[in-house]
């Protein structure tokens, strides 16, 4: 091709479509900007053209333009046809784009058809258009007229089927209707719950439509993928940190049953607060505010997520095997550590802790041994609670990852996560955290030392493996 591959960037793409099909929502999802424009179920919410640049590696690669919805394509097509016919009678043949351009000079383009004129003007100024379809709507004459109008702009058009995951969606009719108009490349992109690969597929299809700009799309895809992986890794790190802290948490209780019960209560409270902190951090990581959660009905505020963490029923609903402590109804199981034998920690862990941890660990051992001899009890968080925390956090992570920034409707429950966390041995890093009460920030300051960070990283890796196995 004569046109070099390094043609002018950014590539300009116009988002067009009938009114109220979710163009601004798609815009929000693609720009990762949940505050872009205004979204509502009201028709013709957007009445102007507003743009955003997609940036990767410090370069603006793509410009997206959100346009007003087409509202009266039937009348507009008729108007333009009349116009072209009149010109023909005067001896001038206007082709598609020329007809559109002529129409744009008319006063009606500023008046009755102002919204439609903005769409056509923007599409003419762009390299390609994304035609956003509400797949729940039937294919009507107005849609066909709309496509005819857009087709006359002579720009590559990629239909985007929005709301395809809705039970009322009629994808087949749309595909057929679009094929009849010569639009065979169609993409499914549910802005509320985009499928995992939707964005990559969208850019991939645009790259085939606009071969000269292929590199821009490929770079964008690569950059977005890197970002997704980094974000997931960070999320797993946040979860791992919470799990390590909760696992490491250890409280000594001196006294009778009443005091133990009070201590268990206190500990439960701290674990709840820690989980909330992790949830907040995850929301922040995925650019959801707590405000978004309230308006957007994320899982945490409704249904199961509001269940009490320490309710045995919650454990059962997640199908977590109940351990000794939890079965007895106590969430923070009494750590009946057989200290003298060092059995509960596992010999390997103890040796590892001694080799890596040195004196500090040994001192803790000493303290605990003394406490044991003095008849004190030690509280730790039960394994079942750890499993539940892990499952809930992983599920939230998955939900956040799958959730588009356009989502305004209630959260769709993700399928069950991997079985690995429900039963079987807990990862080794959790076991070693048990030996390091100083790693926990649940009660005051924690010691951030390389061993702790290593344990967190190892656990995060493990979470990642479970996560990808569950996918």
């Amino acid at each position, binding site marked *: 091709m004569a046109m070099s591959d390094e043609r002018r960037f950014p590539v300009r793409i116009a988002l067009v479509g009938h009114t109220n099909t979710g163009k601004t929502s798609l815009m929000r999802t*693609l720009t990762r900007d949940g505050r872009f424009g205004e979204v509502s179920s009201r028709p013709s919410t957007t009445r102007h053209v*507003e*743009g*955003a640049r997609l940036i*990767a590696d*410090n370069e603006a690669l793509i410009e997206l333009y959100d346009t007003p919805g087409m509202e009266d394509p039937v*009348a507009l097509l008729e108007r333009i046809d009349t116009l072209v016919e009149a010109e023909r009678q005067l001896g001038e043949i206007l082709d598609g784009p020329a007809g559109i351009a002529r129409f744009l000079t008319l006063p009606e383009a500023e008046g009755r058809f102002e919204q439609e004129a903005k769409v056509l003007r923007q599409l003419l100024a762009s390299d390609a258009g994304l035609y956003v379809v509400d797949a729940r709507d039937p294919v009507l*004459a107005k849609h066909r*007229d709309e496509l005819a109008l857009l087709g006359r702009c002579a720009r590559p058009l990629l239909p985007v089927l929005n709301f395809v995951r809705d039970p009322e969606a009629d994808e087949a009719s749309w595909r057929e209707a679009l094929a009849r108009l010569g639009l065979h490349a169609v993409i499914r992109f549910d802005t509320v719950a985009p499928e995992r690969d939707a964005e990559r597929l969208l850019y991939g299809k645009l790259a085939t439509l606009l071969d000269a700009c292929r590199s821009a799309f490929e770079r964008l895809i690569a950059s977005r993928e890197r970002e997704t992986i980094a974000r997931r890794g960070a999320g797993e790190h946040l979860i791992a940190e919470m799990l390590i802290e909760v696992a490491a948490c250890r409280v000594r209780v001196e006294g009778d049953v009443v005091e133990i019960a009070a201590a268990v209560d206190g500990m439960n409270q701290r674990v709840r607060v820690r989980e909330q902190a992790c949830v907040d951090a995850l929301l922040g990581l995925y650019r959801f505010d707590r405000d978004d959660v309230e308006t957007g009905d994320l899982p945490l505020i409704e249904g199961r997520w509001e269940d009490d963490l320490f309710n045995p029923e919650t454990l059962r609903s997640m199908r977590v095997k109940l351990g000794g402590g939890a079965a007895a109804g106590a969430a923070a199981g009494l750590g009946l550590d057989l200290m003298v034998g060092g059995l509960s920690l596992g010999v390997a862990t103890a040796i590892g802790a001694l080799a890596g941890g040195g004196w500090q660990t040994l001192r803790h051992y000493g303290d605990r041994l003394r406490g044991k001899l003095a008849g004190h009890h030690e509280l730790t968080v039960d394994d079942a609670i750890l499993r539940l925390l892990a499952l809930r956090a992983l599920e939230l992570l998955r939900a956040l990852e799958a959730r588009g920034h356009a989502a305004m409707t209630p959260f769709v429950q993700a399928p069950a996560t991997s079985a690995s966390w429900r039963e079987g041995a807990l990862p080794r890093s959790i076991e070693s955290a048990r030996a390091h009460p100083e790693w926990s920030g649940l009660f005051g300051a924690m010691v951030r030392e390389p061993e702790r960070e290593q344990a967190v990283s190892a656990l995060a890796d493990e979470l990642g493996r479970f996560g990808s196995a569950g996918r």
Partner: protein
Amino acid sequence: MLKQTPEHSPDRFERRWLAEAIRLLEAGRGPLADADAVRMARLAGGTLEDRVLVRAQALGAREGLLDALRDWRGIERLGLIVVALLALSSGFGVALGVLGDGSRPVNVVWALGGLLGLHVVGLVVWLIGMWFGGRDAGGLLGKAWQWLARRMARSGPAVLLGRARTDLLAGAGLNRWALGAVTHLVWLLALLGALAGMVLLFMLRGYQFTWETTILSGDFLARLVATLGWLPGMLGFEVPDATTVKASGAGMLAVEEARRAWAQWLLGCVLVYGVVPRGLLWAGCRTWFRRQRAALALDLGMPDYLVLSDRLMPASERIGVTDPDHADTARAANRHTHVAGAGAPTVIGIELRPERSWPPTIAEGVVDGGRVDDRIQRKEALARLAAQPPARLLLACDARLSPDRGNLGLIGEMSACAADCRVWLMDGTAPDNPRLAHWMDGLARLGFESHEIIGDEGRALAWLAHGDE
């Protein structure tokens, strides 16, 4: 000390240190108000790390961390000077104590042990610590030094900086090298002090040397002296020969050469087994530490930085409105006006789904106006209505679709062709359909009263057949 320009600009490591301190500050206290700092960082451009650093520096200046960093530097330097002086003088003191005032002969074995013993033990402990890794590595002296620095830094920012530094270095596994460098430096200075003390005393005082043993043979000691003296001997230090050694043990040897040989042997041993290894280790630790520290990068995969990256290096930026809405351009709000119509009651379906059955079961005398969707159907329907305006017109719409200017305009035009008109919302009349309200709004703008919009099929068809009763 070289005084720098008052605008102290932090070096490469210090900028990362500052960023880590800011991160810790925000982790503890919540996000800082950083609109200006973020703007600066975005203006500066560059990689994400560059931007994080620019932001941190701007925030650090505001939060007093930049000043604290300068203070920290001063404190650390001052502390190092104090420790260095202490080490030098205590080394000197050790030499003084070991050699005595010359009134009694010097026991060479004891003297060497006193000068190097603790140092060798410390070195072995350090090496073991380094070998096995672990957090206690780095030397006790280094730990003490860290503690001292923390003690001296009492204010909030300084404590924060201390933590940030430890975290940052620990994350890169550099703490042990830093602490090792300090430990070796202190020992180096102490041993240099001792060496200086010995040279001074040997110059100004006359010492007799001896050795004592109960069970060891003189040969053994001679061999020991020769072995230890081999390396210093290579560097030109005199080593007492076997006869001198034996003579020194038997009685006090006052021969000048022997005394000089003993003195040189002692100096050589302290230099070769004390000063040189410590010096090399210090230089090694320091070089390694500096090089690694210079290569230190922020862990940008940390959740905190990822969250920050959304604002410092957003995936998109808004261009703004490029084609504004000229507002209130007459959005044809066709109030429906009634002509005197006497034609048969008519029902028309507007933009219905293909799967929707049509017509509904209508009473005798009611005309089916058909489905209206495309341009031609619209025209024909309007022409028919204009030719014979019906007395009652029922327009059936699907409330699951969005009302738009097109279909509302059509409703307006058709209703103007009938004496009386009602809109029948066939489907999607459940209250949870958000588009229902939009239909009500749109129709109200056309002039339909709420009783003129019917959701129930029976009522709609009854009205069509008999009108209002």
